[in-house]
């Protein structure tokens, strides 16, 4: 069994040249059959496997990853964790994720470096302040720690913002969530992988799904580049590629795939201590514990599966960043990249049974899946274990597109995900 992580074990290993550590997760050969298969070795998939084993005692589980675990959007996002949502359904979902994040390092015995340094969504006009008030009130009613910030409050948490009177996007105030922050994205994937592996889950990398095994109208397994693997409960958590798998299973989803870019500056000494989002520029920014300024913005508005960033969007995002923080005009761009995200009409995830019996969905997280990983895992695990929704996942069923009961956060709060 893998050695427990602690300051003491690290010290002891230090004396021994760090040679006693075991594999963080095992890489076994796939077995011909499992109790459950999770397609996708990103945060959601790995969390699903972990919670299947931990919450439901189902450990004969395989996580099938076409590349390397955490290599999709889990490893490509801007690492923001928050739960400042408008609708009660969203608050239940993201609130669950947020609470689980707060205990995750100890739960997994893996430091995911959740850094709750707060996040402010700026308001740039009276009208935005009114919507800000509406949003904060909704959150407070739903039990979320939101505050309506004055310009002075914003200045206190982000003193280097452009407060000049002729700023293009002046600050009228903001929506603050103190418990929001960032976490180390790779560590979330690795921590879940290690914990799941310890509970008996098989994590199979370089294993791409080529087709589903469908018998009697039900999904009975998958064909992969590493052979046929059977199970009667199959979950998919393959953000960005959900439509591709859906097509193999014979149905369509209300999803378009888009590239979402992010970029980082060269590392500099600490200068920005919170996460700042401006609806005017569409840019959100934080500084990592390594010192890089981590910059995110809007989607490349061209449906795409190419995991690379493009120049026009990058230019728009950076122009927005410098409008917010002119002193970043001395910094240099070090690295840019992109992930492919599932964009759903109401910007809320799809969690629930698929049109193909035995196959369950966890998709459609748009640009905000990272913050929901613990909840996405918990809920998909529950669906795989019980075959049924619980109260938290039910509103996010695929059927909402027929009933019309969408959960459109952008529509409700005017704030993009």
């Amino acid at each position, binding site marked *: 069994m893998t050695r427990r992580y602690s300051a003491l074990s690290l010290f002891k290993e230090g004396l021994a040249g760090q040679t006693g550590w075991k594999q963080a997760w095992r890489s076994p050969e796939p077995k011909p059959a499992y109790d459950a298969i999770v397609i996708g070795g990103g945060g959601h998939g790995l969390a699903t496997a972990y919670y299947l084993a931990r919450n439901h005692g189902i450990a004969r589980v395989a996580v099938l990853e076409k590349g390397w675990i955490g290599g999709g959007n889990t490893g490509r996002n801007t690492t923001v964790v928050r739960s400042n949502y408008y609708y009660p359904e969203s608050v239940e979902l993201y609130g669950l994720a947020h609470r689980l994040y707060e205990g995750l390092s100890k739960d997994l015995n893996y430091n995911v470096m959740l850094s709750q340094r707060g996040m402010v969504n700026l308001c740039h006009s009276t009208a935005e302040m009114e919507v800000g008030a509406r949003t904060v009130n909704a959150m407070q009613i739903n039990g979320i720690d939101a505050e309506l910030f004055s310009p002075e409050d914003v200045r206190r948490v982000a003193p280097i913002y452009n407060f000049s009177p002729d700023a293009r996007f002046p600050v009228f105030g903001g929506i603050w969530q103190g418990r929001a922050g960032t976490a180390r994205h790779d560590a979330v994937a690795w921590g879940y992988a290690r914990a799941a592996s310890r509970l008996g889950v098989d994590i199979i990398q370089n294993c791409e799904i080529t087709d589903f095994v469908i018998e009697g109208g039900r999904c009975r397994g998958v064909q992969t580049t590493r052979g046929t693997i059977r199970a009667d409960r199959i979950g998919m958590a393959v953000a960005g*590629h959900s*439509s*591709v798998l859906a*097509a193999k299973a014979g149905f*369509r*989803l*209300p*999803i*378009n*795939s888009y590239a979402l870019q992010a970029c980082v500056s060269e590392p500099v000494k600490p200068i920005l201590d919170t996460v700042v989002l401006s609806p005017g520029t569409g840019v959100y920014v934080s500084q990592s514990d390594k010192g890089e300024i981590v910059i995110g913005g809007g989607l490349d*508005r*061209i*449906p*795409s*599966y*190419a995991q690379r960033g*493009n*120049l*026009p969007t990058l230019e728009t995002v950076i122009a927005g960043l410098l409008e917010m923080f002119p002193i970043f005009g001395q910094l240099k761009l070090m690295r840019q990249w992109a992930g492919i995200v599932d964009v759903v*009409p109401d910007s809320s995830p799809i969690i629930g049974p698929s049109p193909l019996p035995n196959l369950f969905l966890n998709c459609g997280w748009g640009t905000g899946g990272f913050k929901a990983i613990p909840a996405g895992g918990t809920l998909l695990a529950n669906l795989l274990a019980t075959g049924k929704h619980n109260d938290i996942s039910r509103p996010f069923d695929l059927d909402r*597109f*027929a009933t019309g009961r969408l959960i459109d956060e952008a529509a409700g709060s005017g704030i993009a995900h």
Partner: protein
Amino acid sequence: MQLFPCPFCGPRDETEFHYGGDAGNARPDGADVPIDRWAGYLYLRGNPKGSAHEIWVHMTCGEFFVMERDTVTHKVLSSAALGGEHAA
């Protein structure tokens, strides 16, 4: 920066274009269209990885057209003005 061929203006920067959806997603009319069919029209997408058949609009000239392109390589395969019929 991708270059898209507007059938009316020729190759132009991607920033002049706006994506308009799947080609051939015909609208079912009527208040009594089965809801699944309506929801399919409204929300379900092919979202292919690879060759895609899409409606685009060149915002500077205002014309909608059909473009075939590869969503992985971003290679543009063809573009054509809308025919007389519904976008197909």
